[in-house]
């Protein structure tokens, strides 16, 4: 089971690398978010026909994952822009475009498909949960590393 998970993670990592996520930490964040989304979608699938809340939650997660993937891919090369003004203009243009697109999708989900807003918001909040977990894990890892280095010294 553990080996299968490791293989899946490595495969996803390689696929993300080929898709342009070259920065290792950014790739890790994107991979975790994709895995979380897949897990939530699989968990909500049996209840999709029964409960509106279940598919609303899954839809919220999918929306924020798509947003984050787009942002992360562009964010990796944004600091390499020669001109600061050009970089800011590119980021703002993409931000407002994504926001408009997200607005359209959310409008469709709430108005046409009758999605419930609170599970939708909870789904959107999964990205924040992912970051916090990643940050805590990283902090714990760095503390352990520091302790080991101290002992070795």
């Amino acid at each position, binding site marked *: 089971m553990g080996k299968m998970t490791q293989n899946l993670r490595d495969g996803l990592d390689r696929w993300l690398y080929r898709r342009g996520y070259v*920065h290792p*930490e*950014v790739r890790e*964040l994107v991979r975790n978010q994709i895995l979380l989304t897949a897990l939530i979608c699989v968990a909500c699938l049996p209840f999709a026909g029964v409960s509106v809340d279940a598919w609303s939650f899954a839809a919220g997660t999918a*929306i*924020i994952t798509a*947003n*984050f993937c787009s*942002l*992360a891919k562009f*964010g*990796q090369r*944004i*600091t*390499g*822009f020669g001109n*600061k003004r050009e*970089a*800011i203009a590119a*980021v*703002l243009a993409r*931000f*407002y475009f*994504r*926001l408009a697109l*997200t*607005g359209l999708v*959310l*409008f469709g989900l*709430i*108005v046409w498909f009758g999605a419930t*807003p609170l599970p*939708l*918001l909870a789904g*959107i*909040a999964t*990205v*924040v949960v992912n*970051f916090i977990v990643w940050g805590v894990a990283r902090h714990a890892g760095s503390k352990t590393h520091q302790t080991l280095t101290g002992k070795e010294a």
Partner: protein
Amino acid sequence: MRKAFMTIFSTAALLALASVAFAADTAGAMGAIGTISWATAIGMGLAAAGCGLGQGLGLKAACEGTARNPEAGGKITVTLILGMAFIESLAIYALVVCLILLFAHPFAKIITG
């Protein structure tokens, strides 16, 4: 040139506020809908502007940091992406709240009594 701009802005402001003046006369649900519409428009405008400003300032600082210390570029990029994703999720929260106010009608029972 300045006079022309002042005239255009004054006309636009008067036209924009006319609906509020008319809505104030109508009692009950229509007035509430008008108020909610204004609230969502102003709220979303403020949220989008604030988030855009935040992203721009964060990116400016990241560009300056990378230019000063190119070796720290990797760490700065991760922090920048995290910050921008947090800001973007805030804008999306505001968007969802505005959509709830406009289309999910959470105050409908209170307004109609």
